[in-house]
């Protein structure tokens, strides 16, 4: 490691430890590293990298998916999906847990925010499950882990961020499609885990719904489910770009929440716009600052050094994937998703490239790892939110959430070593470059 790299790494880590926001830490560390590199106009260069990092049309999909997620979360869409999921899986043993998981997956397919899933699906399902005799901690565990499937099932903002951080190596449509099968697999694995537990604890079976009722619920859920068709169908059919589809999603979810289901009042709209604006800014400042930092990384040839170091250890692709998975799992326990993707994509992508791992496949592995991180302490957004809703503590949940971690990790390893699971769908749809 030469001097500028040492400056970058040491200052960045120190700033993070002192709780300086990640975006500022990246910016300051980049300035210091550029100063250490000598004769660079560091201040202007960082400002320039930052602004050119965000003046990108494809990034507009982020504020729009955030906004449509907010409308979906406030708009009573979760309840319609729960009713619908109940028809499909409610009758089995531990039915409510299955309903919870399936709803999270469906919700993920229309909103793509894990916290929105925990609060709007969990906010309804957890109290209901508590009442029906399921353990509080079990209910929290199911919701927390199932909510993360929404980040793998498109649309998903973290995938847009990955597509950007990968520097155009993957298109947004391709990474969206790559997540479908792994996302469904995680959901299925969680269902298996919850069913096994439900059998052992003899949790109740749900209602069997009559046919007429089935149709009624299906029709009520159709408007919400239609959004999947509009967004994904629009992008895949080449009708919309991802950005245009996201804008249509805002309009559609707005109409659904405000006009059709009438669960969002007109006077709540400015607040939603503001919340969406601030959330967008948080992501965009991270993206902006990460552009400055990844410029330094590339200029100092850090990815090449890491590749060389890894190649010195092993030439085995499986072992390399294992090492990278362990690093990302560790990172995910401490760091939120967007900063983690922005920091580690430019470092690891060239590395995995030398080992013949496709950027799409790697993106899915990375996101799956970080999803597990959302459910683990010490920093786990979903974990804390879920514990709050279930009115229990992280310590109590830890014992019961272990089987669900196991399910997620098993699927992570299956997807790591079977690239076909991520690659097949984009390949069939002709989205590979």
């Amino acid at each position, binding site marked *: 490691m030469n001097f500028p790299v040492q400056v970058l790494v040491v200052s960045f880590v120190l700033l993070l430890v002192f709780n300086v926001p990640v975006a500022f830490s990246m910016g300051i560390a980049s300035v210091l590293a550029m100063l250490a590199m000598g004769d660079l106009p560091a201040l202007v260069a960082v400002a320039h990298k930052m602004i050119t990092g965000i003046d990108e*049309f494809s990034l507009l999909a982020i504020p729009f998916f955030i906004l449509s997620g907010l409308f979906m979360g406030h708009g009573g869409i979760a309840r319609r999906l729960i009713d619908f999921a109940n028809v499909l899986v409610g009758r089995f043993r531990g039915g409510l847990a299955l309903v919870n998981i399936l709803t999270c997956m469906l919700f993920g397919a229309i909103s793509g925010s894990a916290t929105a899933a925990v609060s709007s699906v969990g906010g309804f399902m957890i109290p209901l499950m508590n009442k029906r005799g399921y353990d509080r901690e079990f209910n929290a565990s199911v919701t927390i882990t199932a909510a993360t499937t929404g980040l793998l099932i498109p649309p998903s903002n973290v995938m847009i961020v990955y597509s950007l951080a990968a520097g155009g190596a993957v298109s947004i449509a391709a990474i969206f499609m790559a997540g479908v099968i792994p996302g469904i697999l995680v959901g299925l694995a969680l269902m298996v885990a919850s069913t096994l537990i439900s059998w052992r604890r003899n949790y109740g079976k749900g209602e069997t719904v009559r046919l007429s009722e089935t149709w009624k619920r299906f029709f009520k859920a159709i408007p919400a489910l239609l959004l999947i068709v509009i967004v994904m169908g629009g992008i895949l059919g080449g009708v919309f770009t991802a950005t245009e589809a996201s804008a249509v999603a805002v309009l559609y979810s707005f109409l659904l929440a405000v006009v059709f289901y009438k669960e969002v009042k007109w006077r709540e709209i400015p607040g939603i716009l503001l919340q969406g604006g601030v959330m967008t800014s948080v992501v965009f400042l991270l993206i902006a600052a990460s552009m400055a930092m990844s410029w330094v990384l590339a200029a100092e040839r850090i990815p090449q050094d890491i590749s060389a170091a890894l190649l010195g250890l092993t030439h085995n692709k499986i072992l390399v994937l294992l090492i990278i998975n362990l690093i990302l799992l560790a990172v995910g326990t401490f760091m939120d998703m967007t900063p983690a993707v922005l920091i580690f994509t430019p470092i690891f992508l060239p590395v995995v490239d030398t080992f013949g791992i496709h950027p799409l496949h790697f993106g899915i592995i990375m996101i799956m790892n970080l999803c597990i991180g959302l459910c683990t302490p010490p920093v786990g957004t979903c974990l804390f939110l879920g514990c709050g809703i279930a009115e229990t503590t992280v310590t109590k949940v830890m014992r019961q959430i272990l089987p669900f971690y196991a399910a997620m990790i098993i699927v992570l390893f299956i997807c790591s070593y079977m690239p076909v699971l991520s690659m097949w769908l984009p390949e069939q749809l002709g989205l590979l470059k």
Partner: protein
Amino acid sequence: MAQWIKKILDCCLEGLVMVVVGVLVIDVLWQVFTRYVLKNPSKWTEELAIFLVVWVALLGAAVATGRGAHLGIDYFVQKLPRRERIAAEIFAFLCIVLFAIFVMIAGGAELVRMTLHLQQKSPALGVAMGYVYLAVPISGFFMLLYGAIGLYERIRAFLSQSEAAEGPLDSAGRPEGLPGREDL
């Protein structure tokens, strides 16, 4: 006084963010409409959308600084006793203030000057790119104000040792242990 300035700032900037986000949605919807319904895609909507999102992102980033909404790793700092934690917060705010002054304001202003000098114009709207980039120093200015207010409050809290009952003061200004962040 500090609270008072913060309220005024919040009011203006938040209002602006709301309006611009709304305009942004309408702008891109208009683009979709012109392309698929009028079959005559508008040339300027895409450019306007980029300019708007750059401005909203940077102004919103200042608002987010005031709210402590920027993501950080609070794990280590939370383990510290109260006084040391406030000291760490003072350091974090100092970093934000310095970044705002040197990179966003000084670096940003120089960037604006250079871009205006090169007379770089956007292709469809013909706006000088320097004015688009003006968002950096302006956002830096508001970030500096929010950062300075945060710094002032923390220093006051640090100096008044007796205020033990005041409750935890984490950078997000939210009660300890409760998550206030979204999954970003």
